[in-house]
């Protein structure tokens, strides 16, 4: 095992943080689910999640690291108050190469007392090099336990029409590239509208990622997109910060950030 991989898989090396996905209901917000994100070991190059997962893919050890991340994520989520829905990032290659992954995930969830129907698997990095039949079987197995499927980074790379057909996702997560600045960019608004209409036809809900600017809420609303995630609402939070933030309290939805900005025609 290489030194960096050893660092990544060392006990207590990985940190779990949660970022709320919120539902926009009129001028109110409520928590829809929590995305469980993994941060790599401090003081290594893998401290940056983008570097860590690029390294993991290049070493072709996605199943090993995905298992570790989800195990930690489930344990961290199980300690949270309430029963929020949860999403976990998983490489398409893990689902396509690790035939035991779905059953293991369900067993791990069961062990910590999380019903699989609370879980959404976000499929990331869809570059090929895995077995299509194993991939399809994994999705069927996960669904049979009540888990949902999300397609991440829609609009970029391999997150394309073929993956929409192949995965039948319940969620399509639009990359921040198309969201950020949409209030002032007709092309981005056209892409948002197009994906929202496509998702409607395919029976999926759209999540807008990377929302940082209240002005971008209007084009989302105009497109009929009512799920969003980003620093405007909450940055990724460690469990104690998340609990202190109030997002998990079973109270009424909280007021949305002001959205009284004019949107260019």
């Amino acid at each position, binding site marked *: 095992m*290489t*030194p*960096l991989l050893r660092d990544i898989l060392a006990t207590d090396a990985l940190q779990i943080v949660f970022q709320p996905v919120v539902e926009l209901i009129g001028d109110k917000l409520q928590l829809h689910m929590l995305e469980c994100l993994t941060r790599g070991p401090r003081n290594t*190059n893998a401290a*940056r999640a*983008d*570097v*860590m997962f*690029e*390294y993991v893919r*290049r*070493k072709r050890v996605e199943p090993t690291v995905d298992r570790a991340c989800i195990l930690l994520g489930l344990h961290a989520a199980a300690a949270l108050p309430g029963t929020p829905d949860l999403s976990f990032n998983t490489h398409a290659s893990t689902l396509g190469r690790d035939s035991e992954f779905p059953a293991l995930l369900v067993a791990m969830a069961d062990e910590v007392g999380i019903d699989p129907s609370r879980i959404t698997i976000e499929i990331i990095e869809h570059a090929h090099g895995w077995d299509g039949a194993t991939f399809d079987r994994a999705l069927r197995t996960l669904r049979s336990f009540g888990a949902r499927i999300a397609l991440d980074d829609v609009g970029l790379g391999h997150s394309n029409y073929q993956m929409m057909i192949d995965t039948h996702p319940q969620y399509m997560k639009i990359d921040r590239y198309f969201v950020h600045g949409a209030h002032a960019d007709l092309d981005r608004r056209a892409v948002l509208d197009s994906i929202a209409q496509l998702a409607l036809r395919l029976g999926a809900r759209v999540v807008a990622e990377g929302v940082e600017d209240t002005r971008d809420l209007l084009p989302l609303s105009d497109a009929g997109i009512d799920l969003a995630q980003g620093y405007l609402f909450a940055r990724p939070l460690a469990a104690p910060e998340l609990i202190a933030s109030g997002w998990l309290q079973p109270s009424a939805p909280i007021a949305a950030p002001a959205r009284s900005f004019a949107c260019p025609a």
Partner: protein
Amino acid sequence: MAHILIVDDEETILFAMGQYIMAQGCTVDTARELEEAQALLSNIRYHLVVADLRLSGIHGSEGLDLVAMVRECCPSTRVIVLTAYGSAEMQQEALRRGADAVLHKSMPLADVADHAMRLLGCAA
């Protein structure tokens, strides 16, 4: 401030060269293997990459893969390849793939740093 990536599978060289180049006022990242360097290069733009030709990989010339990657993903990044055993053909291949310089690993760190600073357009 120049941002430099040093790639070598020998910790002592990484440490010593990192310290030396940081002393020139640069920010330094280090990587011990090909995939670690590739993951950094995929996400960070460096001004200069200093890479050992041989990185404990399968074919013994992983540095050439890095040169090719740098030329493809960040053409303005300068590249120095260090070699202890490389043949003349290997050195030619590194230059053909786009390395800006091929230096012998026995070269004093001060001279390597001097090459690096000149490539970056800075006085050493």
